[in-house]
């Protein structure tokens, strides 16, 4: 396993034009991750701006209702900007600033990473441009306006499937044209090394806190830790500090859309195969000719045909499990958590909640599940209403 890889996965499969910049980011990150001033500033931002540590909330009503394992929610939805994305973005934007960059660009699916990037850029005085698939700009028009409000320019990407993967393509293309003053803030644990490592490190604060919190509250480790996976950043953050706790099961919940037996899903781990794309060797939804497949999920944030290379490695080594969750199951969980706990989860996070609902009743009452509630669901309300047949003006 070399530095750039997780087992055979990972690597740096990018055009030569990007390599000098990627090397620069690699070197800068190697330096600043151990730099006292950088870490003090980042920790201060996480505490005083993002609102960390996030709560580990005991979902009492849900636990009693399901009558099985105790369920705790890691409340990333309570972070500033409403999701875990801010953890990574503050780290990368600060890195950009330390590297002397004036401008940041980013891709976004649901808009959460875009909003977080625009927020960090506003805070740190950086120019910001966001690439978003045209279809996603329609699904998440509120987030588009939010980004603009924060001073970012949003580019609707009309090439290809007009969703997250095309937004990544376009952001990478823009990055290859202009990197001297521009940092690409990648939103997930994907892309070429060092991004999967950088994003995982910045997100690992989730499990660092959760592990301490559960030990403090329960005096023992959880039996299961779970999170939704698209690219896999909140899951990687939620898993990371539990990887060495061999008795803790790690479960990633991926988007099965209309079902894994249809062609409308984004279930990379269940249906995908090994390939090389977006800078990494990993697992992708693709056809037998190696063309990346159009994927589908009700959740724009999980609507991605690949997964981060460290997840591919965790799956291959059997350390983590990945399960598909359909649109319908996720929507039911969205409604369920809202009613039972008074917490409206992001439709992405609802995929993990759905699987917790399924598995908790099969477990003993002294067993513990931690679900990463990666984001809040305000942005999804209109779309879920529409799914249920009600049209609401946002």
């Amino acid at each position, binding site marked *: 396993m070399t530095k*750039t890889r997780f087992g055979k996965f990972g*690597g*740096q*499969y*990018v*055009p*030569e*034009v*990007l*390599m*000098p910049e990627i*090397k620069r980011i690699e070197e800068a990150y190697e330096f600043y991750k151990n730099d006292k001033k950088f870490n003090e500033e980042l920790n201060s931002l996480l505490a005083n701006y993002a609102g960390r540590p996030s709560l580990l909330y005991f979902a009492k009503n849900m636990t009693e209702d399901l009558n099985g394992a105790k369920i705790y929610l890691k409340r990333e939805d309570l972070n500033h900007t409403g999701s875990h994305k801010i953890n990574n973005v503050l780290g990368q934007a600060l890195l950009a600033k330390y590297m002397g960059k004036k401008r940041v660009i980013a891709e976004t699916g649901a808009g959460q990473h875009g909003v977080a990037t625009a927020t960090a850029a506003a805070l740190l005085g950086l120019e910001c441009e966001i690439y978003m698939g045209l279809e996603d700009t329609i699904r998440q028009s509120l987030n588009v306006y939010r980004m603009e409000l924060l001073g970012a320019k949003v580019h609707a990407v009309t*090439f*290809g499937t007009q969703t997250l*993967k*095309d937004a990544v*393509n376009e952001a*990478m*293309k823009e990055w*290859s*044209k202009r990197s001297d003053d521009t940092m690409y803030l990648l939103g997930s644990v994907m892309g070429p090394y060092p991004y999967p490592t950088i994003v995982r490190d910045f997100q690992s604060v989730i499990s660092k806190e959760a592990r301490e919190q559960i030990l403090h509250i329960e005096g023992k480790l959880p039996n299961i830790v779970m999170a939704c996976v698209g690219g896999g950043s909140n899951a990687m953050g939620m898993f990371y500090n539990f990887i060495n706790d061999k008795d803790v099961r790690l479960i990633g919940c991926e988007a099965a859309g209309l079902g894994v037996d249809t062609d409308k899903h984004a279930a990379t781990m269940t249906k995908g195969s*090994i*390939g*090389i*794309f*977006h*800078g990494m060797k990993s697992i*992708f939804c*693709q056809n*037998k*000719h*190696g*063309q*990346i497949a159009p994927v589908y999920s009700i959740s724009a944030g999980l609507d991605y045909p690949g997964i981060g290379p460290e997840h591919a490695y965790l799956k291959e080594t059997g350390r983590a499990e990945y399960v598909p969750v359909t649109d319908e199951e996720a929507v039911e969980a969205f409604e369920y958590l809202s009613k039972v706990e008074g917490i409206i989860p992001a439709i992405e996070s609802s995929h993990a909640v759905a699987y917790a609902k399924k598995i908790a009743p099969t477990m003993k009452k002294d067993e513990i599940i931690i679900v990463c509630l990666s984001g809040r669901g305000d942005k999804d309300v209109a779309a879920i209403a529409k799914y249920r047949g009600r049209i609401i003006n946002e």
Partner: protein
Amino acid sequence: MNNIKKAFENKALIGFLMAGDPDLNTTKEVIISMAKAGCDMVELGVPFSDPIAESSVVQSANLRALKSETYLKSIFDMIKEVRNTTQISIILHTYINPVFNYGYEEFFMKCSEVNVCGIVVPDLPYEEKSEIKEYADKYNVDIISFVVPENIDRVKMIAKEATGFIYFVPSIGSTSSMEGHFKEITNIIEVLKENTNIPIALGFGINTTQQAEFFSEIADGIIVGNAIVKIVEKYGKNSPSQVFDYVKTMKSAIKIK
């Protein structure tokens, strides 16, 4: 003499073409026209769903080619047919994923069978060359290396191990005042020549005869991409004769030297 060396016997004109745009039969005819018009090498694009390193002109060509269900197997079949008419030097320009899925060993075996002498992989930088190197070597197919001007140490490092020819991309997206880059380009070419004996081709949106004349003076070859793809886009099945005329004009601009 291998087919790449042959292409660079004189100043080389390399023409980029997307396989399967709008269909493989047209591609076959265009290749034959290009050969007749004096083109020295065809850089044949293998369509990919997500061509991140291409101009928007070539990106769209990728999608048109995928619409006609053009995949590696049928591309190899087409090249085999081309070989009944011309032995023009052909290299494949492909993203790594279609090759990975086809199988490295089988891919390079096929290349050698139909006399494809090189492969250009936009998303396989120096650091990841080992992904395919053993197979490329085994079947005697050159992995063509991209060079960009940004970092001189990288330029040297890449040049020292490069095979076939160097694909030098002076400055992305700056097609407006190419001649303005003259000094930067000649400097890098000098560095390249100090570090390798293989030919150097320039590719960055060259499309006029003046540019062809100008740049063929300082490099061993020039690559014309967008211009040919645009002709194919405009004329479709009727493009072979149009491409022939264009290539002939470009070639004559180089031939003066």
